[in-house]
């Protein structure tokens, strides 16, 4: 394994940014989100999750894909040139890497989404979490706060340095010719990282157990959950905003709209939210999810029941805790999981 001294990171970033677009968690007005790195940018590798997950880099909130223009004899279509060139995502947390894996199941399986496929080409350097937050629960989904198997390169924070391990062909390629910045890690450092990984997972799992909920309940009662009482009480306090869906690393619903002025316009797709009342509004005026109850139920059922049923048991939640932290009225998916567990006990 390799390592890089933290003091050398700006030099490394400068080097990486020469050959590719480099995204890092940057602090703008106190808000940390992934953004293109420039010299002097305020990088923040210490805060755990960015507010907006890196999904917006592979699946932008708005993406125009065709321009159209009314010519004399026909409507003329011009596809938008898709972005090319390498990019690197540095400092992605393991839950967010897992989030991309969930999105892959949606967009890269048949029918293949070429816009997504093109944007998914980047190289991912994941950063292990040494100290998960109270709202983190990735271990619930058999993920590890300290390890992201799907990342191209895995980094562990050792205090003074980052331990560096290439995990894919892309990762190996990026690691080559980097001797100026990287040095060999000692056996002791490797052991420390291993220990950090174990401690983080244990700490998070212990915190989750302290809250007394587990996923087993959901697996057993997924079908019965549809008529559960909780949807009534949760939806009553829901504000109907889209925070939970838009800060979610796995939510992937989108809408397609046209923007046109005069004789020309463009067609774009953009994130949509099942929390919005017009999400299922049909042209006829019929709305199969007329109240907040159906909408709140949909969001949780999709993540915990429908998605795993369709994708071989893979859940549509990676336990990043963003929705738990950001919901203005503390609607908490872990409480839904707990209630579902309670359903079995009552049955």
């Amino acid at each position, binding site marked *: 394994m390799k390592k890089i001294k933290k003091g050398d990171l700006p030099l490394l970033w400068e080097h990486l940014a020469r050959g590719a677009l480099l995204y890092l968690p940057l602090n703008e007005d106190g*808000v940390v989100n992934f953004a293109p790195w420039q010299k002097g940018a305020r990088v923040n590798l210490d805060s755990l999750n960015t507010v907006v997950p890196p999904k917006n880099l592979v699946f932008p909130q708005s993406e125009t894909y065709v321009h159209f223009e009314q010519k004399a004899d026909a409507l003329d279509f011009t596809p938008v040139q898709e972005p090319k060139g390498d990019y690197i995502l540095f400092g992605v947390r393991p839950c967010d890497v897992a989030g991309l894996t969930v999105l892959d199941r949606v967009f890269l399986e048949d029918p293949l989404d070429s816009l997504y496929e093109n944007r998914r080409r980047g190289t991912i350097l994941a950063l292990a979490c040494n100290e998960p937050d109270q709202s983190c629960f990735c271990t619930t989904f058999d993920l590890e706060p300290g390890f992201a198997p799907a990342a191209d390169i895995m980094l562990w924070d050792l205090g003074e340095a980052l331990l560096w391990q290439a995990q894919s062909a892309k990762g190996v390629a990026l690691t080559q010719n980097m001797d100026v910045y990287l040095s060999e890690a000692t056996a002791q450092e490797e052991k420390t990282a291993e220990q950090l990984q174990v401690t983080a997972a244990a700490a998070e799992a212990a915190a989750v157990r302290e809250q007394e909920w587990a996923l087993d309940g959901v697996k057993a009662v997924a079908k019965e959950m549809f008529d559960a009482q909780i949807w009534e009480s949760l939806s009553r306090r829901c504000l109907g*905003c889209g925070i939970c869906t838009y800060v979610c690393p796995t939510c992937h619903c989108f809408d397609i709209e046209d923007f046109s002025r005069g004789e020309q316009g463009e067609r774009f797709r953009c994130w949509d939210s099942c929390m919005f009342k017009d999400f299922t509004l049909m042209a006829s005026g019929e709305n199969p999810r007329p109240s907040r109850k159906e909408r709140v139920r949909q969001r949780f059922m999709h993540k915990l029941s429908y998605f795993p049923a369709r994708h071989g048991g893979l859940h549509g939640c990676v336990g990043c805790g963003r929705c738990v932290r950001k919901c203005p009225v503390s609607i908490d998916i872990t409480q839904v999981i707990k209630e579902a567990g309670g359903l079995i006990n009552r049955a």
Partner: protein
Amino acid sequence: MKAMLQKIRKEAASVLASGEADLVLGWGKGPLWWQSYPAFIEEEKETGSLTWDPFCVPNLSKYLLEELWVKQKVALFLKGCDALGFNQLLQDKRVDREKVLIFGIPCSGLIDPQKVERAGLHQGLHSVEHQGGELVFSYKDDQKKEDPSSFYYDKCLTCRHPNPVVFDMMLGDAVAVNPQERFAAVGELEKQDVSERYRYWERQFSRCIRCFACRNVCPACSCRECIFDLTDPRWLGKANVLSENQFYHITRAFHMAGRCVDCGECARVCPVDIPLTSLNRKLIKDLNELYGEYDAGVEPEKEPPLITFNPGDPAAFLES
């Protein structure tokens, strides 16, 4: 803090037992320290789940819009800022005062979880409560005591009405009113030249994720059908691009002009920390300067400045 909690539970139980109200809106507690959320209590036996702690920030009054369709009388607890929002709903004729029973809670400020996090006090935290003049942070095996002043929400530091201006019964003694100057941040922005200020707001609005939490939480946003939800015509395009985001925020701010009670909920719920308070306060400040002091939410029967016309009103925009 504990005395107030007892009063809250007692009054809730009493109005449900007597049938004086068929619903009580209060706050319940989730498993994590900052999770104090709106609770809907219909049975006397459930009143023991009500909570009162430094995180009971959500304003309960907007829930009346839905609940009063089915409930005969709703009792609810209002802090100072919540009471202003309630009065705005009253002025907009969206709630029937006769169907509401208000318990007022004098409030000396609530705690901002983000400030707790920034101070590094959040790991392993179980609960936070006021004890004497101190804020006590409880962990599994120990406690830390801090001066509460550095943890209050910004909006609490500038609060001019900590004692509810509307109530049927007040649950505690009035607290001292000692607000910091609320237009300070606006003043700083006004000092910037136009292009600098424009770049500042461009940066803020670029961050918007269009979740509409600011609108949905706002007690002055109570239209049955919102212009931003209309699909025909589609006034607000769905694309998250700067021009649409600007259109959304600026239009909303102007719709709030003279009606924003400055409760700060929009800025609190914003997931990307857009300083909406500064935007709203700029309009409040301008209105005060143009049409005389007006404090939305304080006297709902008093006509707001943009609803009234006086021949002497400044109209420079007509003369140029």
